[in-house]
């Protein structure tokens, strides 16, 4: 008899086999597209309203073809992304600054609490027409809507993180010699950043949605504009083409942020798989 212990070949559950999960996910998507196409061809889903993958997928390809009659698709994408990024960055910075200030200054927080709660209670999308009237039909109104959406997410995340920061951490660094500024940069802001990073994907999604919705309501360019134009011509294929393109872009944006999130949270405890 040898002393070595032979471990049984570990059975890996299906949910942990990467290739299997991927294949399953692809299968679900293909099934969905196939069902849409099939139901459309069988006349169950009227293509006039619901279009069909075999109609809008070529349409998207057509948009990207040089010399497309529907206007420059790259311009639309660039416009929407610019609005998204600006709304996201400005909203995040404002949320961070105001959230930090309110958490650090009790009186300030108390004074503004009812007003902010009121603003937060407004469904932000109804502000889109207001912003278009106030800031015009171009970039500014789209960014403004994105900012109002992103601001509150980041504001609440920062406020809660700074207010509820572990007092032991603060006491410890103070005894180690931290001045006020050190406490801010070593303890409070990192605590806030980790909350913000956790809400990064949500707030970026909101900035994107804000831009598209505001474009849809009134603009000269952008993916939202493209959908609104198609709708005006009862062109459901154009509408769905735009929607699918937006979904793909959102997905891309989200996976980029997921990457950034993973990189910036190496210090966080994670359950080993």
């Amino acid at each position, binding site marked *: 008899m040898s002393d070595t212990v032979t471990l049984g070949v570990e059975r890996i559950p299906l949910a942990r086999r990467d290739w299997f999960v991927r294949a399953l996910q692809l299968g679900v998507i293909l099934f969905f597209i196939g069902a849409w196409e099939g139901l459309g061809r069988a006349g169950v889903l009227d293509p006039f309203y619901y279009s069909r993958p075999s109609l809008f997928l070529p349409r998207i390809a057509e948009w990207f073809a040089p010399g497309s009659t529907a206007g420059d698709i790259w311009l639309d994408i660039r416009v929407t992304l610019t609005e998204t990024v600006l709304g996201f960055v400005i909203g995040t910075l404002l949320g961070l600054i105001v959230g930090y200030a309110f958490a650090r200054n009790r009186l300030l927080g108390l004074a503004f609490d009812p007003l902010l709660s009121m603003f937060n209670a407004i469904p932000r999308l109804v502000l889109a027409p207001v912003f278009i009237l106030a800031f015009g039909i171009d970039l500014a109104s789209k960014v403004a809507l994105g900012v109002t959406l992103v601001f509150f997410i980041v504001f609440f995340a920062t406020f809660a993180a700074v207010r509820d920061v*572990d007092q*032991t*951490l603060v*006491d*410890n*660094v*103070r*005894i*180690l*010699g*931290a*001045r006020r500024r*050190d406490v801010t940069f*070593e*303890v409070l802001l*990192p605590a806030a950043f*980790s909350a913000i990073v956790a809400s990064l994907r949500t707030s970026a999604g909101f900035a994107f949605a804000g831009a598209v919705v505001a474009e849809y309501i009134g603009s000269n360019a952008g993916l939202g504009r493209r959908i609104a134009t198609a709708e005006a011509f009862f062109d459901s294929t154009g509408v769905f083409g735009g929607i699918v393109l937006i979904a793909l872009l959102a997905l891309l944006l989200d996976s980029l942020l997921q990457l950034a999130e993973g990189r910036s949270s*190496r*210090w*966080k*405890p994670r359950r080993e798989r």
Partner: protein
Amino acid sequence: MPPSITLRGVSKVYRPPKKPPYLAIDGVDLDVDQGRFVSVVGPSGCGKSTILALVAGLITATSGTITIRDDPVRAVRTDVGFLFQRDALLPWRTVRENVSLALRFRGLGRREIADRVDPWLARVRLAPFADNFPHELSGGMRKRAQLAQSLVVDPSVLLMDEPFSALDVQTRNLMENELLELWGASGKTVLFITHDLEEAIALSDELVVMTAGPGRIKARYPVPLPRPRNVSEVRFAPGFVSLYERAWSDLRDEVLRSYERSLRSAS
């Protein structure tokens, strides 16, 4: 030896919002001579942590005076080392960065910091884990990192608030021995809080027993055990048991009183 830490008639009243004020400690007098290792035991809630926070200047006394090396405590003291019961390492900083903090706050340069941090990482056997984050360490390793973090600036006073109570018994004995070794010939004054009488006797030169809240000093005992000590053996030393029994009879009364009071306030 001149006293390193003195408390004279120190009381602390907490005034929580929307609750009645609470007298946590009442007229505490305490001298800790330089280079001595003094432990404070008492029932839960008797004000042990309060005393330590007062000495470190984290909170201010309602009355009485506190001095560290003849210097009245008025603000947070950065010339002491403080070991918290709870994890106090910055979770977003690596072990090396955590141990470097006090030196960075003092404005030292990169090279100087490395020159002083590296020996400490080696001394607490964390050199191989220098670039790990706290969550990647065991509880004992985190405690050692905290020891290095507070000792890297060589404070002459070390305040410890139940630093090892979250550890399992074996790790705890190892840490206690390591602490004694680090403290050994350092000449540092240690004020050590614990609710574990055995730990208190095994480590200290002197034992202070507190009353149930509001905390007062009930009794003080010198610990006549020879050094160097091994905490897992010293409990079999002659003198340990008799001291334990005397101190325990004091402590037991207070623990019972504190327990009865908690029952009464619960009903």
